[in-house]
Protein backbone atom coordinates (compact mmCIF):
# COMPACT_ATOMS: atom_id res chain seq x y z
CA UNK A 1 0.00 0.00 0.00
CA UNK A 2 1.39 3.33 -1.03
CA UNK A 3 0.41 6.58 0.55
CA UNK A 4 1.58 10.16 0.61
CA UNK A 5 4.35 11.07 3.02
CA UNK A 6 6.28 14.16 3.92
CA UNK A 7 9.88 14.05 5.10
CA UNK A 8 11.65 17.10 6.47
CA UNK A 9 15.15 17.38 7.88
CA UNK A 10 17.74 19.92 8.99
CA UNK A 11 21.41 19.56 8.04
CA UNK A 12 24.21 21.11 10.08
CA UNK A 13 25.63 24.45 8.90
CA UNK A 14 29.18 23.05 9.04
CA UNK A 15 28.80 21.33 5.67
CA UNK A 16 28.53 23.13 2.33
CA UNK A 17 25.57 23.03 -0.04
CA UNK A 18 26.97 20.25 -2.21
CA UNK A 19 26.87 17.83 0.69
CA UNK A 20 23.30 18.81 1.46
CA UNK A 21 22.40 17.98 -2.13
CA UNK A 22 24.16 14.63 -1.76
CA UNK A 23 22.03 13.78 1.28
CA UNK A 24 18.81 14.81 -0.48
CA UNK A 25 19.80 12.78 -3.53
CA UNK A 26 20.47 9.70 -1.42
CA UNK A 27 16.98 10.01 0.08
CA UNK A 28 15.21 10.69 -3.22
CA UNK A 29 17.05 7.86 -4.95
CA UNK A 30 15.93 5.34 -2.29
CA UNK A 31 12.35 6.50 -2.80
CA UNK A 32 12.53 6.19 -6.59
CA UNK A 33 14.25 2.79 -6.33
CA UNK A 34 11.27 1.49 -4.32
CA UNK A 35 8.95 2.58 -7.16
CA UNK A 36 7.89 5.70 -5.34
CA UNK A 37 7.02 9.04 -6.90
CA UNK A 38 8.48 12.32 -5.68
CA UNK A 39 5.79 14.98 -5.88
CA UNK A 40 7.53 17.98 -4.41
CA UNK A 41 11.00 18.96 -3.25
CA UNK A 42 11.36 22.07 -1.12
CA UNK A 43 14.85 23.35 -0.42
CA UNK A 44 14.77 26.37 1.85
CA UNK A 45 18.53 26.63 2.03
CA UNK A 46 20.45 28.06 4.97
CA UNK A 47 18.08 29.43 7.57
CA UNK A 48 18.32 30.69 11.14
CA UNK A 49 16.97 28.30 13.77
CA UNK A 50 14.49 29.46 16.41
CA UNK A 51 16.78 28.04 19.10
CA UNK A 52 20.26 26.49 19.02
CA UNK A 53 20.52 22.74 18.40
CA UNK A 54 23.82 21.25 19.54
CA UNK A 55 25.22 24.80 19.62
CA UNK A 56 24.30 25.34 15.95
CA UNK A 57 22.45 28.58 15.23
CA UNK A 58 21.69 27.85 11.55
CA UNK A 59 20.73 24.91 9.38
CA UNK A 60 19.79 23.78 5.88
CA UNK A 61 16.09 22.95 5.59
CA UNK A 62 14.88 20.32 3.09
CA UNK A 63 11.31 19.01 2.70
CA UNK A 64 10.34 16.10 0.45
CA UNK A 65 6.81 15.02 -0.41
CA UNK A 66 6.49 11.60 -1.99
CA UNK A 67 4.13 8.72 -2.61
CA UNK A 68 5.82 5.54 -1.41
CA UNK A 69 5.37 2.32 0.50
CA UNK A 70 5.38 2.59 4.29
CA UNK A 71 8.29 0.17 4.72
CA UNK A 72 10.58 2.54 2.78
CA UNK A 73 9.78 5.32 5.24
CA UNK A 74 10.77 3.07 8.13
CA UNK A 75 14.18 2.39 6.57
CA UNK A 76 14.62 6.09 5.80
CA UNK A 77 13.90 7.00 9.40
CA UNK A 78 16.52 4.53 10.58
CA UNK A 79 19.07 5.97 8.18
CA UNK A 80 18.30 9.59 9.10
CA UNK A 81 18.78 8.72 12.76
CA UNK A 82 22.27 7.38 12.04
CA UNK A 83 23.36 10.40 9.99
CA UNK A 84 25.46 12.71 12.09
CA UNK A 85 25.06 15.65 9.72
CA UNK A 86 21.29 15.66 10.15
CA UNK A 87 20.25 17.62 13.23
CA UNK A 88 16.51 16.91 13.20
CA UNK A 89 14.02 15.14 10.97
CA UNK A 90 10.27 14.64 10.75
CA UNK A 91 8.13 12.17 8.78
CA UNK A 92 4.37 12.56 8.35
CA UNK A 93 1.61 10.69 6.54
CA UNK A 94 -0.70 13.05 4.67
CA UNK A 95 -3.46 10.72 3.39
CA UNK A 96 -5.90 10.85 6.31
CA UNK A 97 -5.67 14.60 6.54
CA UNK A 98 -6.31 15.08 2.84
CA UNK A 99 -9.40 12.89 3.10
CA UNK A 100 -10.65 14.95 6.01
CA UNK A 101 -9.94 18.22 4.23
CA UNK A 102 -11.82 17.04 1.14
CA UNK A 103 -14.81 16.23 3.35
CA UNK A 104 -14.65 19.68 4.88
CA UNK A 105 -14.42 21.48 1.54
CA UNK A 106 -17.47 19.55 0.34
CA UNK A 107 -19.37 20.50 3.48
CA UNK A 108 -18.41 24.17 3.10
CA UNK A 109 -19.50 24.15 -0.53
CA UNK A 110 -22.88 22.74 0.55
CA UNK A 111 -23.27 25.42 3.22
CA UNK A 112 -22.42 28.11 0.68
CA UNK A 113 -25.00 26.80 -1.75
CA UNK A 114 -27.71 26.74 0.94
CA UNK A 115 -26.78 30.24 2.05
CA UNK A 116 -27.04 31.51 -1.52
CA UNK A 117 -30.45 29.90 -1.90
CA UNK A 118 -31.78 31.50 1.27
CA UNK A 119 -30.34 34.87 0.31
CA UNK A 120 -31.91 34.68 -3.14
CA UNK A 121 -35.29 33.72 -1.72
CA UNK A 122 -35.06 36.54 0.81
CA UNK A 123 -34.25 39.06 -1.92
CA UNK A 124 -37.21 37.87 -3.93
CA UNK A 125 -39.46 38.23 -0.90
CA UNK A 126 -38.17 41.71 -0.20
CA UNK A 127 -38.75 42.79 -3.78
CA UNK A 128 -42.27 41.38 -3.59
CA UNK A 129 -42.96 43.28 -0.39
CA UNK A 130 -41.59 46.42 -1.95
CA UNK A 131 -43.93 46.06 -4.93
CA UNK A 132 -46.89 45.48 -2.64
CA UNK A 133 -46.09 48.60 -0.66
CA UNK A 134 -45.86 50.63 -3.83
CA UNK A 135 -49.25 49.39 -4.93
CA UNK A 136 -50.71 50.27 -1.53
CA UNK A 137 -49.29 53.78 -1.67
CA UNK A 138 -50.75 54.24 -5.14
CA UNK A 139 -54.12 53.13 -3.88
CA UNK A 140 -54.08 55.61 -1.00
CA UNK A 141 -53.13 58.47 -3.29
CA UNK A 142 -56.02 57.75 -5.53
Amino acid at each position, binding site marked *: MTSRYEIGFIVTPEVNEEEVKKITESITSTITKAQGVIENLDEWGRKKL*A*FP*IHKNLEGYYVFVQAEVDGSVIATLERRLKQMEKV*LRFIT*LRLDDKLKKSNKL*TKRWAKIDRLRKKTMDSREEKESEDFNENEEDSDATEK
Partner: protein
Amino acid sequence: MQPRSSDGPGRPPKKYYSARKKFCAFCKDKITLIDYKNHKNLENYISETGRIFPARVSGTCAYHQKQLSKAIKRARQMALIKFSEEKKRLS
Protein backbone atom coordinates in the same frame (compact mmCIF):
# COMPACT_ATOMS: atom_id res chain seq x y z
CA MET B 1 -33.68 59.00 38.16
CA GLN B 2 -32.58 61.16 35.31
CA PRO B 3 -29.75 60.00 33.12
CA ARG B 4 -26.57 61.92 33.63
CA SER B 5 -25.56 64.17 30.79
CA SER B 6 -22.07 65.29 29.96
CA ASP B 7 -23.21 68.93 30.20
CA GLY B 8 -24.25 68.72 33.83
CA PRO B 9 -22.13 68.38 36.94
CA GLY B 10 -20.41 65.18 37.96
CA ARG B 11 -18.85 62.49 35.88
CA PRO B 12 -19.82 62.04 32.25
CA PRO B 13 -21.90 58.97 31.52
CA LYS B 14 -19.96 55.75 31.45
CA LYS B 15 -19.45 54.27 28.03
CA TYR B 16 -20.23 50.59 27.63
CA TYR B 17 -18.58 48.63 24.88
CA SER B 18 -20.12 45.44 23.62
CA ALA B 19 -17.42 42.88 22.84
CA ARG B 20 -17.19 42.04 19.16
CA LYS B 21 -17.87 38.39 18.49
CA LYS B 22 -14.74 36.36 17.77
CA PHE B 23 -14.57 34.14 14.74
CA CYS B 24 -12.29 31.41 13.46
CA ALA B 25 -9.79 32.96 11.03
CA PHE B 26 -9.14 29.59 9.36
CA CYS B 27 -12.85 28.98 8.70
CA LYS B 28 -13.12 32.46 7.21
CA ASP B 29 -10.25 31.86 4.77
CA LYS B 30 -11.45 28.27 4.19
CA ILE B 31 -8.13 26.69 5.14
CA THR B 32 -8.67 22.96 5.62
CA LEU B 33 -5.10 21.93 6.40
CA ILE B 34 -2.83 23.92 8.68
CA ASP B 35 0.78 23.48 7.60
CA TYR B 36 3.50 23.43 10.24
CA LYS B 37 5.97 24.89 7.73
CA ASN B 38 4.00 28.14 7.57
CA HIS B 39 5.55 29.32 10.83
CA LYS B 40 4.93 33.02 10.26
CA ASN B 41 1.19 32.47 10.46
CA LEU B 42 1.54 30.16 13.46
CA GLU B 43 3.39 32.85 15.39
CA ASN B 44 0.12 34.80 15.63
CA TYR B 45 -1.27 32.05 17.85
CA ILE B 46 1.51 31.87 20.43
CA SER B 47 2.22 34.29 23.25
CA GLU B 48 5.35 36.33 23.85
CA THR B 49 6.75 33.54 25.97
CA GLY B 50 5.89 30.85 23.43
CA ARG B 51 2.68 29.43 24.88
CA ILE B 52 -0.22 28.40 22.67
CA PHE B 53 -3.25 30.67 23.07
CA PRO B 54 -6.42 28.85 24.14
CA ALA B 55 -9.34 28.75 21.72
CA ARG B 56 -11.39 31.07 23.90
CA VAL B 57 -8.74 33.78 23.45
CA SER B 58 -7.94 33.35 19.76
CA GLY B 59 -11.50 32.41 18.75
CA THR B 60 -10.54 29.45 16.57
CA CYS B 61 -13.04 26.61 16.24
CA ALA B 62 -12.42 23.20 17.81
CA TYR B 63 -11.51 21.55 14.52
CA HIS B 64 -8.85 24.10 13.71
CA GLN B 65 -7.56 24.50 17.26
CA LYS B 66 -6.76 20.78 17.31
CA GLN B 67 -4.81 21.08 14.07
CA LEU B 68 -3.19 24.33 15.12
CA SER B 69 -1.80 22.95 18.37
CA LYS B 70 -0.37 19.97 16.52
CA ALA B 71 1.14 22.18 13.82
CA ILE B 72 2.75 24.44 16.43
CA LYS B 73 4.25 21.44 18.21
CA ARG B 74 5.65 20.12 14.92
CA ALA B 75 7.09 23.52 14.07
CA ARG B 76 8.78 23.58 17.47
CA GLN B 77 10.30 20.17 16.77
CA MET B 78 11.78 21.50 13.54
CA ALA B 79 13.11 24.65 15.25
CA LEU B 80 10.81 26.97 13.30
CA ILE B 81 9.14 28.31 16.46
CA LYS B 82 10.67 28.83 19.88
CA PHE B 83 9.71 26.46 22.69
CA SER B 84 9.76 29.10 25.41
CA GLU B 85 11.36 32.40 26.17
CA GLU B 86 11.76 34.31 29.39
CA LYS B 87 9.67 37.41 29.71
CA LYS B 88 11.68 40.57 29.16
CA ARG B 89 11.50 42.74 32.25
CA LEU B 90 11.92 46.45 32.43
CA SER B 91 14.44 47.04 35.20
